[in-house]
């Protein structure tokens, strides 16, 4: 379904690619976790799949195919209809999805109505329903709030609700739960897994939480300095990592009741 072939990506006029030699093949209904160093290019890779690299970012080598089509060859209009409905993204920083100076409700209604013919009232109700499915109590009040009136985790769940509105075929989730408490995190992880069970959604989840990565994934990629340093099944990565970096990461995971700093 998704085939990333040996891509390289640069920002601005940089001569050295930020990301190089990344490949990934995914089937419908598969879940892949990407973990790794901060700044290694995880966000860059999944933004490239969505075709929205910021700051003059460009794919300079390789190809990304989605259901057989080369995404690099798509027209703007084709992109617009794909984005949000077939492929959607939960951004690491909810600010990238939500305009900070407009209330949530009108933004959500507008988002729904660019992808579906539906009345304003219908879109409003759909928005409220999605927010409540993300465990936001009192969805109507959230719709009437400005982003600054919500906590960090509440804003993040607004972004998750938006991304899941149209049951995309491919969900790109960039740190979807790192702003959430553990019980809400567990719930959202379950919701994402349910998307797969019910709609056979494929998911790429980028996360620093190796427990979440391992729990969700069929396959794990480990990135460092713009390259994939380890890839394989969950069992392989956890039990037989091939790179020293993966081993170092696994050793650094904080453990309940484990070593203490103070």
């Amino acid at each position, binding site marked *: 379904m998704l085939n990333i072939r040996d891509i390289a990506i640069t920002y601005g006029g940089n001569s050295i690619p930020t990301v190089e030699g990344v490949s990934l093949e995914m089937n419908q209904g598969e879940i892949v976790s990407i973990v790794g160093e901060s*700044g290694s290019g995880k966000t860059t890779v999944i933004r490239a799949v969505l075709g929205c690299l910021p700051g003059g970012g460009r794919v300079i080598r390789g190809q990304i195919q989605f259901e057989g089509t080369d995404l690099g060859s798509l027209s703007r209009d084709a992109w617009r209809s794909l984005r949000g409905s077939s492929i959607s993204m939960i951004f690491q920083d909810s600010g990238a999805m939500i305009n900070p100076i407009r209330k949530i409700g009108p933004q959500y209604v507008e988002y729904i109505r660019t992808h579906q013919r539906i009345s304003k009232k219908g879109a409003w109700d759909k928005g409220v329903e999605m927010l409540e499915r993300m*465990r936001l109590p009192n969805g109507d009040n959230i719709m009437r709030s400005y982003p600054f009136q919500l906590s960090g985790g509440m804003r993040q769940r607004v972004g998750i609700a938006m991304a899941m509105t149209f049951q995309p075929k491919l969900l790109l989730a960039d740190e979807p739960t790192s*702003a959430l*408490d553990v*019980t809400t*995190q*567990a719930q959202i992880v379950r919701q994402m897994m349910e998307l797969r069970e019910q709609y056979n959604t494929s998911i790429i989840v980028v996360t620093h939480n190796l*427990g979440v990565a391992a729990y969700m994934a069929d396959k794990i990629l480990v990135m460092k300095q713009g390259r994939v340093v380890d890839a394989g099944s969950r069992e392989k990565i956890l039990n037989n990592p091939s790179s020293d970096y993966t081993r170092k990461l696994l050793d650094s*995971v904080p*453990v309940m009741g484990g070593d203490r700093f103070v």
Partner: protein
Amino acid sequence: MSEPHDLILAARHVTKKYPASNGRILVANNDVSLNFYRGRTLGVVGESGCGKSTFMRMVVSLEAPTEGEILYRGQDITKLRGEALRQHRQKIQMVFQDPSAAFSPKMKIMDIVCEPLLNFKRIKKGEKEETARRLLEMVELPGDFARRYPHNMSGGQRQRVGIARALALEPEIIVCDEATSALDVSVQKTVVELLVRLQREKNISYGFICHDMALVQSLSHQVAVMYLGNIMEILPGGQVSHGCLHPYTQAMVGAVFDLHMDFSHPIRSIDSEAPSPLDAPAGCPFQSRCDRCMEICKQERPPLREIAPEHQVACHLYQ
């Protein structure tokens, strides 16, 4: 109280209310009393939206409580204004949850990192770049990032800029609001080791809001558990995993993902809906989701009670 630690800042019966839609009132903090001691870390955990950031914003004087007082070395800082407030600010710094919202996109990293130092005339303009490079390297970023802009960096890199900026003034108290959540665990460990080392050397107190239960218990002397604006439990960091008593704390500990869990079992969590802070129930705030809820829980709010040294719980099971 228990052992005599050096108390620096004490929040006393702090309540914060916000106006909400349709003329309603949202209670973000309800009668919160917490202490910051010299050289010690207070971890704060709790459900998203329960009021952790709101509380800390009051501690760093960005907002004023609706009721209650915040005593810094005995003086109520909620009353400070003008120059006195400005001078006070250098003693308490905050690393914000959302770094991209906290930085002006037009400022270079060195300007962001050195802004507090220049404001308080601790360095000269000419020393800016060199100082910024040193601070960035402390948080494992290349010194060259001093000349970058925040939007040209990854999430975790921006977050470390926020930490470097807070460390710059060498304040007495640093509040870290999800300050390490965008870092990979290996860099996170390095940053935490740095924070702990500085704490030992300079006796800094930290307020550490964090959703990673395993991390927060490993670096906190004390952990406060919040729910719907209320403190439910305060306990030593080392006791969180095995010694926590409140049903909400226990639910949180049970919902932690770890590498040695059984991946074929669905993760545990609390299934029922969270109540809204707009209409918090009478009685125990956690009653609608507690599987040990009793009759009294629906009528009377359990007070926070000390049940062992340094361990307080607000739950009728332990009255």
